[in-house]
């Protein structure tokens, strides 16, 4: 049973560019959450997708957007990249029960470097 997978593993971009990160959830999971983990910090919640809609969002600007596909996989898009966007981007998948997220399983992350 494959766990959560993310691609690419590493990415280098320059300021002002746009980037798309991808996530495939664990089998049987329908909810995907994205987190940003800057160096030396804990993961920070970006947003969560369920039934192809953004259900909840953290304190991130509109430059951060996402999408969920019918097969539950998800993309994170970041526009107009800033140096401060350099971080490890984590995807976590889970199921929902009565509107509440069950245990989240994390992927290995995508390391984004903005030069």
């Amino acid at each position, binding site marked *: 049973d494959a766990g959560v997978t993310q691609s690419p593993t590493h990415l280098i971009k320059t300021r002002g560019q746009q980037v798309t990160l991808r996530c495939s959830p664990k089998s049987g999971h329908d*909810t995907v959450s994205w987190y940003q983990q800057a160096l030396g910090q*804990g*993961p920070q*919640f970006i947003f*969560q997708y369920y039934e192809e809609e953004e259900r*909840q969002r953290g304190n991130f600007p509109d430059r951060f957007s996402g999408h969920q596909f019918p097969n539950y996989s998800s993309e994170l898009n970041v526009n107009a990249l800033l140096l401060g966007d350099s971080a490890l981007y*984590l995807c976590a998948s889970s199921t929902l029960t009565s*509107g509440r997220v069950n245990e989240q399983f*994390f*992927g290995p992350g995508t390391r984004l470097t903005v030069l």
Partner: protein
Amino acid sequence: AQSVSQHNHHVILSEAASLELGCNYSYGGTVNLFWYVQYPGQHLQLLLKYFSGDPLVKGIKGFEAEFIKSKFSFNLRKPSVQWSDTAEYFCAVRGYSGGYNKLIFGAGTRLAVHP
């Protein structure tokens, strides 16, 4: 707003020493509490969780944590650490704040265990 504070950023221990990592959270309502671990080069993994009931919870690999509601704390303990416990440990809280679905992480504690 919810927040999580981990008291120690770096901890160095010798094998067989006892471990206690502090975690305090800020939130007045019902919370779920978690400890995650990230071994070098690996994904974030769930160590243990507290939802309700017995405030002393046991997790994998001999770890346990105690929820003390009056102190807003959820400290992680292990009686005797091993070299293989070298990792980064994250405390996280999940509480209702516009949705019961996002995890708020602490900054993490990096544990190094020397043989």
